[in-house]
């Protein structure tokens, strides 16, 4: 039995290692295609990416990815796939920013109120897909994709016609700026105390702390509560779950709505921490990158955290590639190849483990 354990450890390392080798090879080929040296590219990226300014931006990029990935992981654990995070976070952010600027509450309460608004909107939007799945049998994959497109159109319609702040004269349409009580404090003053110096354009979203806390909550709810157990049960074996008294239809609906509620929060780090309003420059594509983060992190809170940081690092550090005349878009190739090779590596390792176990079993039975 000891031998099996040793090989399990070896396998756990071999999978990611093989994935890393494959993805580095593909990325290097992409750089070579533009007649540049991959070594130079990686060195430039590393040098730029490890400056403290870049690291701060990495954290800021990773925070929304992480929250959105948690949202997707909820549905993955329930055997569903919420591709609509992009739309849910967009609507959550615009409603949170618009309604949040309408009232004034004591500091912490105000932020909580905005979060509740964003969660409600995101949850309701995702609940449409949940309802269609349960009542009408529409695949949630297709309905959430359609809802993404609808959310995009709806948010620009609302912003242009109803939510725009007409008191300021600016080309960039924006909602009214949130009052100070609704702004999430930056981590920079705290970091200063630890000797980190201010960086131009720097600052670290305070919601980073919130995101980490959310990761713990996710872990606890999924792994340590009855609700989490039922969620996982209906995901991994719906028939068995039904026989043990889990209402799988209700579970589908609840999982979609909950996922949407969490997704609604993913647009807030930038809104509450940086722009203090929803404007035309709101980042697109968070929801799609987050799918990759969730897949890479295997729906595990820690794993998703690491992959969110990795994606943030690649995205920020690749900006330096322009200096040596390589397209910064190279990071997309890197992210994509990492994603695909890891997903394949996980599966190969899983299959190999099963083969190994059945061999061990056969041997044990023969003895």
């Amino acid at each position, binding site marked *: 039995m000891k031998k099996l354990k040793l090989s399990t450890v070896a396998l756990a390392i071999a999978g990611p290692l093989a994935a890393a080798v494959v993805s580095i090879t593909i990325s290097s080929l992409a750089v070579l295609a533009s007649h540049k040296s991959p070594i130079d590219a990686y060195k430039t990226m590393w040098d730029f990416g490890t400056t403290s300014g870049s690291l701060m931006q990495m954290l800021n990029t990773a925070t929304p990815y992480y929250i959105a990935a948690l949202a997707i992981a909820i549905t993955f654990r329930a055997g569903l*796939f919420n591709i609509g995070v992009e739309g849910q976070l967009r609507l959550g952010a615009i409603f949170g920013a618009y309604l949040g600027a309408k009232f004034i509450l004591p500091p912490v309460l105000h932020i909580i109120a905005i979060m509740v608004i964003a969660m409600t909107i995101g949850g309701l939007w995702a609940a449409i897909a949940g309802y269609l799945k349960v009542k009408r*049998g529409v695949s949630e994959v*297709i309905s959430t994709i359609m809802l993404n*497109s*609808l959310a995009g159109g709806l948010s*620009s319609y609302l912003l242009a016609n109803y939510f725009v702040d007409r008191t300021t004269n600016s080309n960039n349409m924006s909602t009214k700026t949130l009052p100070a009580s609704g702004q999430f404090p930056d981590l920079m003053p705290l970091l200063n105390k630890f000797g980190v110096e201010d960086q131009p354009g720097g600052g670290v979203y305070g919601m980073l702390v919130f995101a980490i806390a959310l990761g713990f909550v996710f872990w606890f709810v999924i792994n340590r509560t009855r609700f989490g157990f039922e969620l996982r049960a209906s995901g991994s074996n719906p028939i068995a779950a039904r026989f043990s008294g889990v209402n799988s239809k209700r579970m589908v609906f609840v999982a979609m709505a909950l996922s949407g509620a969490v997704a609604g929060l993913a647009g807030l780090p930038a809104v509450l921490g940086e722009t203090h309003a929803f404007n035309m420059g709101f980042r697109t594509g968070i929801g799609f990158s987050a*799918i990759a983060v969730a897949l890479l992190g295997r729906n595990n809170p820690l794993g998703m955290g690491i992959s969110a940081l990795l994606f943030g690092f690649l995205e920020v550090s690749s900006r330096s590639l322009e200096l040596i005349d390589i397209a910064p878009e190279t990071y997309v190739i890197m992210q994509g190849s990492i994603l*695909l090779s890891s997903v394949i590596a996980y599966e190969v390792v899983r299959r190999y483990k099963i083969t190994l176990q059945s061999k061990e079993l056969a041997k044990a039975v023969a003895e």
Partner: protein
Amino acid sequence: MKTKAVKFLRYATILVFVLAIIRQITGASDLTSVGTASAALLLSVPIVLAGLGGLFSERSGVVNIGLEGMMVMGAWAGGMIGTKHGPWLGLLAAIVFGAVGALVHAIATITFGVDHVVSGVAINIIAMGLVRYLSTLLYKAGTWQGPSQSPDVNSIGTNSLPVLSGGNYFGWKSPDLLASLAEKHWFFISDLAAILRGITGDLSYVTVLAIAMVPLSLFVLWKTAFGLRLRSAGEAPIAAESLGVNVYAMKYAGVLISGGLAGLGGGFLAIVAANHYQENQVAGRGYIGLAALLFGNYRPGGIMMGAGLFGFADALQLRDSASVHALILLIVVVLAALVVRDIRKGKIVKAALTFAFAGLSLWYFMAVKELPGQLVTMTPYIATLLIMSLASQRLRMPAADGIPYRRGGLR
């Protein structure tokens, strides 16, 4: 088979009739114009191709969410090769690029057993990143106008159905009966003529080719040994294997054909529907193709009908927002029909709810003169959601669709 065709014709006639009435009431003349019908056909073709792509893949048992990414690859290759080497080679390149995307999907799902949806989504993310990266390279090399748009592609010729819709045949100029009928403004007859003129006149050769794919797919999948084997891989792979079918090979074939068709759909968007590649040109049409596949219950004819509906919604959205406004009235009519059906079945609560929704739609129709642009662009997606929610319960998907298959029974 004959009764099905009759049924289809009857529904189509009713639809045109209702549209004619609505046109009469609202004055939205573009609802049944020649231009709308031909745009609807043009916009359904990529969706038909994507849907047929999905058909081949899913009939072999592999779910293909990656259609979107394969279409993106095809559109990009169509634009890139098309500008340099002419439209026909561009289309060929689109097929090849789509198939390359499909090969990645096949390797991941069939050889390595990765979850089909996961792999498909990964391919979509990668395809979009890859084309953006490659476009930047070409832009830097000075061959493209911008990183998000290719130079123009030469047009592929068009022709029309002889006698009915005009056109040129070996120097003989054919009369254009339908167009002259459409200009008479007779109720219903002119509407019908205009729609027929739209879908038979000024056809691109590629459109004809693509529409021919529908009966061809039906033939290949249901009348040939290859089709039987491919479908058996999607229904009962273990049984098929025991009878000597190479299930892996069949699945590979299904997915590769799927990618080729999706790539062709993308190339069509770049070369025929527009005359250049543009970023976000595909805009979810791969997914809508998948919706058409589900709507059509995994049958080629159904896919074509579904694609026609989505193409119509898309065409109205692109041409004229007044027609989209008139379309709300169509929704009211459909809802009213549903109310009558529910009352007959004795489902009073449901009928009341539908009635309330119909009333709400009617009020909105009366209250708003014209829909704002941002909402008009949402038409095809709303149409997809509505159609899916009205029509997706009696699906009969291939029995082993989406289940990773491994020879020898190990999972």
